[in-house]
Every structure is written in structure tokens, then in C-alpha cells.
């Protein structure tokens, strides 16, 4: 029975010339945006790899100098783009990619692509994710808004009811019919995504790609259910359509902007000037309750104890003590930087959580967060990169200061190290976190998407039971 209903629905939808045109347009848009995303992702990956090689070469070829001078010279690292950025660039364009790693400073990544965008940036970009998250739901609405109301208007719903078919069966059949039509649109896209992933080769996380699929399917199932509810309850197909377009524009256009306005009010961020001033102040005086001198002294004590020079400062060669002092100072500065930068990143993360929680009102916000999380293009992944880079920076500076301490000897500040030492520093590696990590960071969005799924289908079942046969 359900099969028959589904076949009939599908045949009707496929035979509708206008729907065929719209579906063809969506497929075309999907393929075009994916092709563009592919080109972009390949170019970005090549560019950043080349830049990283150049930066590494600049570091190794910096010439002979004092190790601490080299620590000032520092090294640049570039953020590798997200694993599935070709599908969903997420918030990557709004995040910096260049990070300068040097002594006495913890900087924030800079050179976000958004800084160089034309004034059209406000319209957003046309990525495969945009098509999948914004346009496909409209296609579903176009496919399904007449599912109940159309039958009622044509008078066929009464006939159907007379045949004794159960509302649940009808609902399921119609859902399968719409899904079948949708599959005709999405299968080419899924195949293309797989193809691009293959072409991009290594670095693509297949498990992430595989996890995106059920995510999007859940999202579409929500839209199908909402469409059916509106169709069953509305007085006419026309009213159903108007209500559904209203639902779409509120959840996909209005709420994201309202959430974007609310986030800074919930978790305000300091102005760049205020942030810089607070860091500068604490570098001079120390964090509240931990004066600078005390902390530097404590770090120096720990270092000396570890190296077995405790209480023998006066017997140590000058350069050795100076090297340890430099390192103790660096350790103090790192405390200050970590305190301020982590607080800043925490506030940004809170802002991001506001948009995730707003998914309670909009399934679009749920899939948007989940999709960019799985694509590795959300703020959590950006932060993971920053954390790794900072760890690397601290280790690099420590290694250089300790080389100065151990090897400067009588030369003191005139001591010069060379290529050997620079080359000994390991290359910066950033392995993107795994699938489980990405899911955990989007647990709110994931849970809310599932809640939408359950509620929407419960409502669809409920309205199907009580659908008015005659308008």
C-alpha cells in the first residue's frame, strides 16, 4: 500500500514540468558551487603549503644570530583549510590564517579573507552548503506544500479516505514519494562530493563526509515533516505555501541575524584597544594577585631546581643564569597571554554557543553549525589550531632560550647559533581533531536537530490522523 502511494506521488512530482525545471536548477547550482569550491580549496591548500615551505625556509636560512634574537625573529605558520572546506567553507573566511610565532608575544591569527571582500560580501557566498541548507528546503516546500491540501482541493482526499487507507500509511507513502524526488536531486550532488573528495586526495576525512550525510538527511526530514504539517492544517494550498515560505524566511533569514545580534550582547568582547591595553598592563605588573616579580622568581626557582642549580646562582656562569632568566620571564609572560587570550577565546566560544542554542528556534541554524563543524571550518577547529600553534611557540622559545643558557658560555650576548640549531626545531604540524571531537563540540546543535526531527515527525503523524478530508 505504502509503496503504491509513494510511486504515485513520485510519478506526479516527476511529471510536473515546473518542478523538473526547479530541480534541474538546484542540481546545476549544487554542481557549479561544488566545482567552484573545489577550485578554491585546491588553490588555498597549494598556496598555504607553498607559503609554509617558504616560511620554514626563511626560518632555517635566517643566518647566524643569537638564539634569543632568533626567537624575536620568529616564524610564521599558516592555518591549513578545513577538511571539507570545498563543501562548506563555514566561518573560515572570517577567521585569520596567518599566525606569527615569536618571543614575548602571543598574537591572534590575521589576514582573514573577509577583509578583502567586495561589498557583495553581505549577501553571503554561494557554496554547496548554501545550496544544501537554504535552497533545497525551498525545493522540498515546492514539492510538498500541496501534499494534503492539494488532494483536499481536488476532492481526491475524500475518495482516498473511502478506500480505507490509514492516514499513517498515506503520510509515509507521501514522505517516501517526496524523498524519492529529492534523492534524484541529491544523488548527483553526493556523487560529485565524493568525486571531489577523491580528487583532492589525502587530507580529506572520509568519516566526516560520511557523517555529513545523515546530518543533512535529518535536516531534510524535518523540513518534509514541517511541510506536511502546514499542508494538512492550512485552509488551502495557497495558505500552506505562504505559511511555509514564511517559516523558511524566519528560520533561514531572520533568526540567524537576530542570533548574530544577540551573541555579542550575551557574551561581549573587549575592543581591540581595551584588550591590548589589558595585556600590556598585566605584562608590566603581573596578573591580579600574582605580581610580576613573584611569578618570575618562582619560575626561575623551578627551573634552577630542575637543572640542579638551586641556591647556586652565584656560582653559575653569567650566560647560563641569563638564559634561565629569559626563560623564566617567558614563562611569566605566557601565563599573562594565556589568561587574556583564553578568556577572549572563551567569550568568542560563548558567542558561538548562542548561535547553536538559537537552533532551538531554527533547524537551519542546527544544520549550519553541524555542517561547518563536520567540515572542520568552525570556530572550535580554529581554536584547536591556535592552541597547537601556541604550544609550538612556547616550546620553540624555550628551546632557543635554553640553547642560549647552555651554550653561550663566556660569549654571552655575543654568542651566535646557526643553521644547525634552526633546523633542529621540528616543523609545525597541526593534525585536525577527529570526528568524535567535532561532534562533541557541536553536541548542542546535534541534540537540537534530533529534537526537531522527533517533534516535527510527531506533529506530522498527529496532523495526519486528524486531517480534514473536506475543506
Amino acid at each position, binding site marked *: 500500500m505504502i509503496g503504491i502511494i509513494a510511486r504515485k506521488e513520485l510519478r506526479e512530482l516527476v511529471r510536473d514540468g*515546473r518542478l523538473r525545471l*526547479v530541480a534541474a536548477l538546484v542540481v546545476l547550482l549544487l554542481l557549479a558551487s561544488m566545482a567552484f569550491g573545489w577550485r578554491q580549496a585546491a588553490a588555498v591548500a597549494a*598556496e598555504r603549503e*607553498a607559503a609554509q615551505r617558504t*616560511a620554514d625556509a*626563511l626560518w632555517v636560512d*635566517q643566518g647566524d644570530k*643569537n638564539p634569543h*634574537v632568533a*626567537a624575536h*625573529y620568529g616564524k*610564521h605558520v599558516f592555518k591549513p583549510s578545513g577538511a571539507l572546506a570545498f563543501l562548506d567553507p563555514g*566561518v573560515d573566511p*572570517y577567521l585569520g*590564517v*596567518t599566525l606569527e610565532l615569536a*618571543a614575548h608575544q602571543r598574537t591572534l591569527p*590575521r*589576514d582573514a579573507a*573577509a577583509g*578583502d*571582500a*567586495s*561589498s*557583495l*560580501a*553581505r*549577501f*553571503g*557566498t*554561494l557554496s554547496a552548503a*548554501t545550496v544544501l541548507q537554504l*535552497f533545497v528546503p*525551498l525545493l522540498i516546500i515546492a514539492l510538498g*506544500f500541496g501534499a494534503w491540501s492539494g488532494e483536499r482541493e481536488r476532492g481526491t482526499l475524500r475518495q482516498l479516505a473511502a478506500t480505507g487507507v490509514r492516514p499513517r500509511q498515506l503520510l509515509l507513502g507521501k514522505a517516501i514519494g517526496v524523498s524519492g524526488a529529492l534523492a534524484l536531486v541529491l544523488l548527483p550532488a553526493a556523487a560529485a562530493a565524493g568525486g571531489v573528495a577523491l580528487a583532492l586526495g589525502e587530507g580529506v576525512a572520509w568519516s566526516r563526509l560520511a557523517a555529513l550525510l545523515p546530518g543533512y538527511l535529518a535536516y531534510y526530514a524535518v523540513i518534509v515533516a514541517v511541510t506536511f504539517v502546514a499542508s494538512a492544517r492550512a485552509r488551502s*494550498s*495557497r495558505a500552506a505555501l*505562504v505559511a511555509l*515560505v514564511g517559516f523558511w*524566511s524566519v528560520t533561514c*533569514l*531572520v533568526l540567524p*541575524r*537576530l*542570533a*548574530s545580534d544577540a*551573541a*555579542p550582547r550575551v*557574551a561581549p*568582547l*573587549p*575592543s*581591540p*584597544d581595551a584588550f*591590548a591595553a589589558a595585556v600590556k598592563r598585566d605584562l608590566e605588573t603581573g596578573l591580579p594577585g600574582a605580581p610580576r616579580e613573584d611569578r618570575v622568581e618562582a619560575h626561575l626557582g623551578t627551573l634552577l631546581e630542575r637543572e640542579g642549580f638551586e641556591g647556586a646562582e652565584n656560582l653559575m656562569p653569567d650566560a647560563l643564569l641569563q638564559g634561565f632568566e*629569559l626563560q623564566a620571564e617567558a614563562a611569566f609572560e605566557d601565563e599573562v597571554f594565556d589568561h587574556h587570550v583564553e578568556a577572549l577565546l572563551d567569550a568568542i566560544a560563548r*558567542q*558561538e554557543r548562542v548561535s547553536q542554542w538559537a537552533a532551538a528556534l531554527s533547524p537551519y541554524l542546527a544544520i549550519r553549525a553541524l555542517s561547518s563543524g563536520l567540515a572542520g571550518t568552525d570556530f572550535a577547529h580554529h581554536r584547536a589550531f591556535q592552541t597547537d600553534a601556541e604550544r609550538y611557540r612556547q616550546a620553540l622559545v624555550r628551546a632557543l632560550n635554553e640553547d642560549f643558557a647552555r651554550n653561550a658560555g663566556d660569549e*654571552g*650576548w655575543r654568542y651566535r647559533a646557526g643553521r644547525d640549531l634552526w633546523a633542529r626545531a621540528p616543523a609545525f604540524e597541526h593534525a585536525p581533531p577527529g570526528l568524535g571531537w567535532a561532534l562533541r563540540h557541536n553536541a548542542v546543535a546535534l541534540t537540537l536537530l534530533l529534537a526537531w526531527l522527533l517533534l516535527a515527525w510527531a506533529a506530522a503523524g498527529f496532523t495526519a490522523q486528524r486531517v480534514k478530508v473536506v475543506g
Partner: protein
Amino acid sequence: MLWTVVQVEGRNLLAERGAWWLFGLLTAFVAYAAWSGASSAAAHRAATRAAVEEEDRKLADLRAKLEAIEAGGPAAPHAEDPADPALVGAGLGARAVALPPTPTASIAAGQRDAHPGVVRLTTQSRLAEPPRGDVALRGPTSQRAGPFDLAFVFVYLLPLLIIALTYDLLAGERERGTLALVLSQPVSLATFVLGKSLQRAMVVGGATVVLAGGALVLSGDGLGSAEGAVRAALYLAALLAYATFWFAAAVAINSRGRSSAGNALALVGLWLALVVALPGMVRVVVEATYPPPSRVELVNLARSAASEIEEELSGLEGDHGAEADESPAATRARLLAAQEALDARVRPVVERFRGQLEAQQRLVDRLRFVSPAIAVHEALVDVAGTGAHRQQRFEAQVDAFHGTWRALFAERVKAGRPLTPADYAALPTFTFEDEPTGELAARVGLGLLGLLVPAALLLVFSVSGLRRVGRLA
């Protein structure tokens, strides 16, 4: 007769609860957008003013310190000498310059959060290393979605309201069976449609002017000036032209004689294509035609240029304990020369950057006619002064000012001449020269033609369709 149709339709609309809801919703959105736009424009204004005053205050402090020393006070520590032009120029003092917000800045946030509001100018190269404060501290998801400003409400939501009011202009009458009845009266179909559209156009036009005007009056700052008045007038003209386009589109689609659900689908499809899909595609085309050079490569380029001047630079930075072999003055002159050399090396690349961005904007200026949404959005950001044209103008002026500022200090460093209180008093200040309002009006006006010409064409196109529908009814 026409007036009777308008009056009857007016009464019908008043009786419709849905229409009240729609207007109520639009009013709420406009009110929120006005409040939000005003508060973010005010915050921006306050932040830039504070930053500029902070640097002015530091310069005044330096000058006071110098006067105290000259009056016989204790000398300043070596690293804080207010008479040393190299030190003061390199960062002890700075001139902060800002792009002043226009009276109508609350209309559209535009690219405001993508550009630093304040630029600090020292003798350091501004090209190689973006100064601190360039990194906008804002959550990326917020930046991505964009703010809920008036431009968003009018560009995206106003057409939806118009669609909701007009998709069943004729089809609704036919479906209810009232069209034949109406046409049996002594009224032509053209008059009937014209009357119905006119009534809705008057309502939407009136609501737009009242809401948009009210929002601007509440959120603007200094609208009384001649500039403010011109900008406000252009803003209202742009919105009315945009509404006219969507009315014309609705009449054209109604004239095809399809069902009201079919009309709604077609109009929503058109809206989706023009407001959501096309701008995204145009953006892709623009950025693919004139791709900006890679910032990432610029980093390395600046770096290798700097390391070739490394000999000079390594003399000071990081060599905490090394004794200087030469006089500090000579070192500083050399450092300054190094900065200038660096600037010269990096400048061609940065020029290429700016060139590409300007070329992008020129292409956007041409391609805005592809979609009325782009045309009206460009007009709104232009009027709000948050668009690319004003930003690029600002960049150019800052560059020129920076040149003057550096030359002034460089001259004193090279001559080994210390700064005097009189020098401090004579330091140049930056005033942004805005585009003449005539030029702005010309550019925005051209954009509005991009709305009105298609609207006229659509109306001409609908005449033939209406004749046919008249026969069918």
C-alpha cells in the same frame, strides 16, 4: 472609477487580519533594526573617537613632558625621550585616524566590521605589518550572518511583504469567482488591475516612507546638515524604487493568468534568484575575475624583504645585553631607512592588492544592474557611507597623510634635530575629505535607474498578458 477600485480595495485590505500581521511584523523588524543599527553605529562612533583622542592625549602628554624638561625638570629616561624624533615617530607617539561615520551610518553596517575603524600611524611601514587593532574582535558566526540592519530588512524582507500582498491580485479574484462579476461592471480589466496595484503600492509606499523615514530619524545622527538631507533623500528614493520594481514584477506575473499558488511560487522563485542566488553568483564572478593577491604570500614577501635588511634590524631587537657599537642616533637613522626600504619593496604588491579590489568594485558597479537587490544594496551602503567607495577613498587619503607624517619625522631623524614643543604643536592632523554629494547622488541615481528601467519594462510586458486574461475571464 479608478479611485473607487482603490477605495474598495483599501477597505478589503483593512478587513484582512493577515495584512495587519504582516505590517505589524514589518514595523517590529524595522524598529528593531533601527535600534540595533543606531546602537552599533553609536558604539563604533564612540570607539573610534576614544581611540583618536587617546593618541592625541599621548602626544599632548609628550609635549607637556618636553616643556617640563626644557623648563629645567628632570630628564626623561633614555627610552622615553620626548625630544627624540626617532622614538616618538616609531611609536611613542602616533596619530590615530578614523573614517568618520556619516549621519546615515545606521542604515547599513556594510563592510564596517571587516575594516579597522581606526588606523594608527607611526613611522613604521604600514604596508608590511598590519598594526595592532586590525584584528576585529568579533565572533565569526556573528560576522558571517551579518547584523540585523535596516538594509537587511528592506533588501530581503520588503519584497516578501510585497509578494504576500500581491501574489493573488487577479488569480485570487478568479479563484473566488469574483473576477467575472467585477468585469461585468463598467470597469476595464486594466483599470481594475491598476486600481488594485495602485492601492497596494500606496499602502506599501506609504508604509515604507513612514517606517524607513521614522527609523532614520530615530537612528541617524546629524540629519539636519545638507549632507545628511541629501543622504536621507537618496535612501528613501532607493527604497521606493526597489518597492516599485517588486510591484511591477508582481503585476507582470499576475498578468500571466496562473493560479495564485503558481504566482506565489513564481514570485518566491524570482525573489530567491534575485535576492539570494544571483548576488552570491555575481560575487563569485567578481572575485574570480579580479582575485586579490594572496595575503599569505605577502607575509613571506615582507619577511624576506625584511631579512635582507636584517643586518640593520638585528642590531637592536632582541639583543638585550649587546653593547651598541655606534651612536643610538645613527642606529635609529639606519632603522628608519630600513623601514623605508621595506616599504618600497612591499609597495608594488600592496598596490596590486588595492588595484584588484578597486577593479572588483568597478565590476560590481557594472554588475549591480544584474539584480535589483544588488543595485539597492549598493545604493544603501553608499548612502550609509559603509561601502567600498568611501573605504577606498579613505585608504588613499590615509596613505597620503602617512607619507607626510613619516617625512616630517624622517627629516628630523636624518638631520639629528631634536623635537621641540613647537614641532609638537605643528604636527599635522587628519581630516577626511568626503566625496562631493553630487558624485554620490550621480552614482546612486544611476543605480536607481537599474531598478526603474526593469520595472517599466515589466509593466509594458504585462499589458499584453492582461488583455489575454481579460478575455479568459
